[in-house]
C-alpha cells in the first residue's frame, strides 16, 4: 500500500521567487517595452496586464552546442512512402521555421504576460513624491502590536507555553513535588510485600510504606502540576506607526478654451498621476478640482469623464483649493501636493490674482506644486525653448523663480506626457535633507 500525500492545499506560487528573479533580470528591457507600449497606446491601459515579448538580452542561456549549418549528419525519420536510396530532397531555404527535419522551435521566442502590479512597478520605478516626510507629523493614528517580553496577566490566547512550563518545572523541583515514578515504586513494593508470606517485619514495613504513600499522595495533590503563578503571557506593546498623511490636489481647466485634444492630454496626465499615487501611497488622499469660470470639487469619475464648458478663471480653482485645505487638511498635519493642468489661457486680470494667491498662501502650505501646460503641437517649437508663453505661464514663472518647490513644464504631444511626468516626479536623492 503506497503512502498518500495530498499536496493540493500546499501554498501556491512556488515558482514566484523564480519569476521575480527573472523579471528583475529582464527589468531594463521590460521597462522599455512597457513604456513604448504606453506611449503608443492609451495611458489608461497602463492599469492592466501587458503582453511583452521575451527580452533578448540577458535572458539567453548559452551552452556549447552544435552549429546546425556545418558538418555531415544523418537523420533517421519514420514514414517513408516513396523514397529509394539515392533520392534527393531539396533543402528548405534558410530562415524558414523548422529548417531541418525534426528540429524543435526555439524556446526563447515567445511572448508572456506581466500582471498589472508588475507593469506598474516597472513603469513607476524611480518615481517618488518629493519630500514626503518633510513635515513633522504630530498626529499618530495607527498602532501596531509588538512583542515585548512576558507578563503574568493576559488573555489565554497569548499564553507562552514554554515559559509557563519552565516556571512550573522549577516550582515543582523547589517544592519537591513527588514524582509519579516514586509513588509507583512504593505502590509496587507494597504489592509484592502483600503477596509474600505475612510476617511481622513485613507488616510493619507495609504500614510504613502505606503511610509514606499517603504522605506523598497528599503532597502531590497539594502541589499542583501547573499552578496559576507559573503562567506567563506574551506581552505586546502598542507601537505607534508614523503615519504620513498626504493629500494630492488635482486641478484641471475644463473650460471652452480647452479643446478635445487638450482635455484629453490633461486627462492622460492625471490618469498617470492617479495611478502613480494609488500605486505608491496607500494612504494618500486625492482631491479633484475642475474649473471653468468657477471651480468645484468633484469625484474621480466626474473629473475624468464628464464634460462642462465655460470661461476660464484659474484663480477660482486655487481659491477652492485654499478653502478645502482650510476646512479639511490643516498643513500642520498634512503633506500637501498639487498638480495643475491648463492650456495657459486665463481671464486677463486673473493671472495677477493667481500669483497673489500662490505667493501669499498656497505655496507656503504646499510641499510641491507642479504645473503642466498643454500647448499646440505647432507651437511647441516656439515655446519649447524660449521664454515666450501664455499669460499664465508668465505669471507662474515669477512664482517659480521664488519658490523652489514649484515646477512647471509644457506638453505638446502625448509622447511628451511620460517624460514630463518623470521629470516632475523623479526621485531626488537627498536633495532636501534637513
Amino acid at each position, binding site marked *: *500500500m503506497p503512502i498518500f500525500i495530498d499536496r493540493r492545499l500546499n501554498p501556491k506560487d512556488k515558482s514566484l521567487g523564480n519569476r521575480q528573479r527573472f523579471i528583475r533580470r529582464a527589468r531594463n528591457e521590460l521597462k522599455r517595452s512597457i513604456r513604448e507600449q504606453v506611449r503608443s497606446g492609451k495611458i489608461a491601459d497602463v492599469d492592466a496586464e501587458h503582453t511583452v515579448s521575451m527580452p533578448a538580452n540577458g535572458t539567453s542561456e548559452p551552452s556549447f552546442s552544435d*552549429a546546425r549549418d556545418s558538418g555531415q549528419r544523418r537523420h533517421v*525519420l519514420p*514514414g517513408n512512402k516513396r523514397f*529509394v536510396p539515392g533520392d534527393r530532397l531539396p533543402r528548405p531555404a534558410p530562415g524558414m521555421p523548422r529548417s531541418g527535419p*525534426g528540429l524543435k522551435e526555439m524556446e526563447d521566442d515567445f511572448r508572456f504576460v506581466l500582471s498589472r502590479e508588475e507593469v506598474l512597478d516597472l513603469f513607476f520605478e524611480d518615481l517618488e513624491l518629493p519630500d514626503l516626510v518633510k513635515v513633522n507629523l504630530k498626529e499618530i493614528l495607527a498602532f501596531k502590536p509588538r512583542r515585548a517580553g512576558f507578563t503574568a496577566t493576559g488573555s489565554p490566547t497569548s499564553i507562552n507555553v514554554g515559559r509557563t512550563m519552565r516556571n512550573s518545572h522549577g516550582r515543582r523541583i523547589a517544592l519537591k513535588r513527588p514524582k509519579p515514578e516514586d509513588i509507583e515504586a512504593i505502590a509496587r513494593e507494597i504489592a509484592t510485600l502483600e503477596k509474600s508470606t505475612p510476617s511481622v517485619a513485613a507488616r510493619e514495613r507495609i504500614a510504613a510504606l502505606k503511610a509514606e504513600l499517603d504522605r506523598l499522595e497528599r503532597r502531590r495533590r497539594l502541589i499542583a502540576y501547573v499552578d496559576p503563578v507559573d503562567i506567563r503571557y506574551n506581552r505586546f506593546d502598542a507601537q505607534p506607526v508614523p503615519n504620513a498623511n498626504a493629500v494630492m490636489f488635482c486641478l484641471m481647466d475644463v473650460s471652452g478654451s480647452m479643446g478635445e485634444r487638450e482635455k484629453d492630454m490633461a486627462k492622460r496626465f492625471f490618469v498617470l498621476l492617479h495611478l502613480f499615487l494609488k500605486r505608491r501611497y496607500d494612504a494618500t488622499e486625492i482631491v479633484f478640482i475642475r474649473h471653468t469660470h468657477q471651480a468645484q470639487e468633484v469625484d474621480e469619475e466626474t473629473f475624468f469623464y464628464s464634460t462642462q464648458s465655460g470661461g476660464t478663471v484659474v484663480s477660482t480653482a486655487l481659491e477652492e483649493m485654499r478653502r478645502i485645505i482650510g476646512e479639511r487638511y490643516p498643513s500642520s498635519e498634512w503633506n500637501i501636493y498639487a498638480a495643475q493642468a491648463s492650456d495657459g489661457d486665463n481671464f486677463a486680470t486673473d493671472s495677477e490674482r493667481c500669483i497673489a494667491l500662490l505667493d501669499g498662501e498656497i505655496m507656503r502650505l504646499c510641499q510641491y506644486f507642479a504645473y503642466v501646460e498643454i500647448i499646440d503641437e505647432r507651437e511647441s517649437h516656439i515655446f519649447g525653448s524660449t521664454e515666450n508663453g501664455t499669460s499664465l505661464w508668465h505669471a507662474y514663472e515669477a512664482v517659480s523663480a521664488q519658490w523652489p518647490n514649484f515646477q512647471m513644464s509644457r506638453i505638446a504631444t502625448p509622447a511628451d506626457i511620460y517624460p514630463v511626468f518623470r521629470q516632475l516626479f523623479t526621485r531626488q536623492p537627498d536633495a532636501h535633507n534637513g
Partner: protein
Amino acid sequence: MTRPAARSELLFSGSDWDFRLLSQVYDAIEAIAVEDLHLDVYPVQMEIISSEQMLDAYSSVGMPLMYRHWSFGKHFLHQELLYRKGGRGLAYELVINSNPCIVYLMEENTMALQALVTAHAALGHNHFFKNNHLFRQWTDASSILSYLDFAKRYIAQCEERHGLAEVEAILDAAHALMDQGVFRYHRPPKLTSEQRREEIRERLEYEEQSYNDLWRTLPASKHGTNDEPDDSTTERKETLNLPEENLLYFLEKNSLILEPWQREILRIVRVIAQYFYPQRQTQVMNEGCATFVHYTLMNTLFDRGMIGEGAMLEILKNHSNVVFQPGFDDPRFSGINPYALGLDMMRDIQRIATKPTTEDRDWFPDIAGSGDWREVLLDAWANHRDESFIRQYLSPTLIRKWRFFVLADTADEPFYEVASIHNERGYEKVRSALADSYDIGATRPNIQVVDVDLLGDRQLRLQHKIKDGIVLEETGCDATLRHVRKLWGYDVSLAGVDMDTGLTVYERTASQIGD
C-alpha cells in the same frame, strides 16, 4: 479475450476517485505486476497535486525541491503559455527517481486515468529506476531529495550572505556548463602511494626479466625527441589529471579565484547534472518500459474482469494518444516519439520470443522462440541504454513497420540525400544510424580541458573534438567561454581539433571575444 466477469469484481466504477480507491487499485495492480511481470519496485509515495503545481514542477526540472534561479522562471512562463494556449496538455503524472519513489498525480484525472498512471509511473518507471544499471551506478535514489533540500537551503543562504547578483552570476556560469559537468565513465580508484610504488616495482621487475641488449643497438628515431612531449607538461597534466571531460569538476577543484561557497555551488549544479544524466540516456527505454507495463497490466486487469469496458475505452484512448507517431511529412511531426518507439520495440521483443519468423531467427538467434519474453525484457531493462538497446533489438519487422529511412545531411550541399531505407541492404544501416542518434556521447559536443600552466600564464586550454565536421554554434560558444573565464579567472582558449585529420580547425580565446 475473456469476457469481463460480474460487475461486483470491478475495482472501480465511475470516474470519481478517493484515497481508499487509489490504494485498492494500486494494490491490485502491484500484485499483478509482481507476480506476472516480475517487477521489482521501490515503495511508492503518491502525491495529489493541482494543475498549477504541475506547472511549478515542470519549471523546476521536475523536481519537488529546487533552488531559485531566473531561468526556472523563464521556463515556467514558457510552459504556462503553451498550456494556456492549449498547445500542450499537462502530463497526467510526474515521477521522481527517489526512494520512496514519488509519483505526482493530477487531481483532475478520472479514476480510470489514475489507474493508468499508477501502472505507468508507480510501477513501470519505478521498476526501471530501480533496476537499470545506469541509475544504479550513477544516482542515489534514497538521498537525492535530502540533497536537493540541502542545495536549496545552501543557495538561499548564499544569496542572503553574498547577494542575489553574486550567486546568480555563479549559477549562470555553472548552468552554461551543465552539459560538460558530468562524468561519462567511472574512473579507476586513485592509487595510494604504496600501491603506486608497488606498480613501479612490478614494472621494473618486468623490464629486468624481459631485458634484451639488442634494443640498445637500435638507432635512435629521427623524430624521437619531437614525439615525446615535454617532461614538465606531461607531469603537470598528470598531477591535474588531464585531460578532463568534466569541466565543472575541474573548475571546482582547480580554479584559483573561486571562494569555497562558489565551489560548493558548482558542485551542486554538477551533482544535479549527473543525477539527470542517466535519464537523458534512457528516454526511449524508460518511457517504453513504463508504457509497455501499463499496457500489459491494464489489459490483464481487463481480461480478469477488474475494470469495466467504459474505463478500458478511456484508458485505450489515452494510451493511443500517448503513443501517436505521425510520419516525417506530417505537420504534427516533431521527432520520434519515445513512448511509441519504446513500446513497439518491447512488444516486438515479446513477439520475437513467442512467435518468431525465420527472419527473426536469423537476426536474434538467442531470443527468438525462447518463449520467455519476460526474462528477455527484464534483462534489457536492466542492462541497456537507448543506444545499445536499439542497436541490439531493433528488428527488420519494426523498421518496415515504421518505414524508417536515413537522410544524409551535408551542410554545404543544397539537398538532403536518402541514404538507406527499409530494405535488405538498409536494415543494418538504419538501425545503427538510429542507435547513433541516441548516443548522448556522440550527439553532444565533446569538450575537454587539455592543459593549463598554473605556474605560467594560467591560460585554461579547452579542446573541442570535431566529429563529422560539426563545429560549435558561435554566439553560444562565445557566451559560454565568457562564463568559463568568469569561473576560471584567467584567460581561456578553445581549440577545435578535427578527429579525423587531427588538424586544428579553429581557435578562440576569451580575451579575443571581449565582453
